């Protein structure tokens, strides 16, 4: 059962780059790494997904080292609106994906 560990909270300032690292030592060969963002009173929203190396989209980048035991979500030049909780998920093995969110990382961006 793949399990993830993330920092409980992080603080940053507008315009800075924010990196949130997630540990998943027991990741299985077929597992992907997915990040979601959740604002208060809303459901989580997909940010990015990757399997290895680096993935980039218009919102974020995801860095995954060769051993895949961790991953880092990178948010470039954050703004106040990036204040949210960020969840790292790893797919379970066996073809039946039961998403496990954990507590996530609460990011607060200060002016």
């Amino acid at each position, binding site marked *: 059962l793949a399990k993830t560990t993330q920092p409980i909270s992080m603080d940053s300032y507008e315009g800075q780059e924010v990196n949130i690292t997630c540990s998943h030592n027991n990741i299985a060969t077929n*597992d*992907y790494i*997915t990040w979601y963002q959740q604002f208060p*009173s*809303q*459901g*989580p*929203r*997909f940010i990015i*997904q990757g399997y290895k190396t680096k993935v980039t989209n218009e919102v974020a980048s995801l860095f995954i080292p060769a051993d895949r035991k961790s991953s880092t979500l990178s948010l470039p030049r954050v703004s106040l609106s990036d204040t949210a*909780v960020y*969840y790292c998920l790893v*797919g379970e093995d066996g*073809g*039946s*994906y*039961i*998403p*496990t*969110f*954990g*507590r*996530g990382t609460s990011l607060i961006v200060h002016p």
Partner: protein
Amino acid sequence: GAGVSQSPRYKVAKRGQDVALRCDPISGHVSLFWYQQALGQGPEFLTYFQNEAQLDKSGLPSDRFFAERPEGSVSTLKIQRTQQEDSAVYLCASSTSMGQETQYFGPGTRLLVL
């Protein structure tokens, strides 16, 4: 296009009352998930449907919780004889297929049991 919708958005129930929470997934999405999110916690998996088949209900906390998706589209989560510990946000998500596909979440139903 329309996203996942849930109703009601807020529900206040007296302890012992039955409640029914509705989820309208994105049209054509095969998979549908229900989650429970307590204050300050991440969403916790309750149950999962592929079309009308409930493939996993391992996360349902007790036999008071029941979910159905009879025609493979709209789903209802029913909680019988509500207890105070059932107070939480109930989230519904849908995706195009099984596996590690992107899930699209609704806004949730906030349930308060007094």
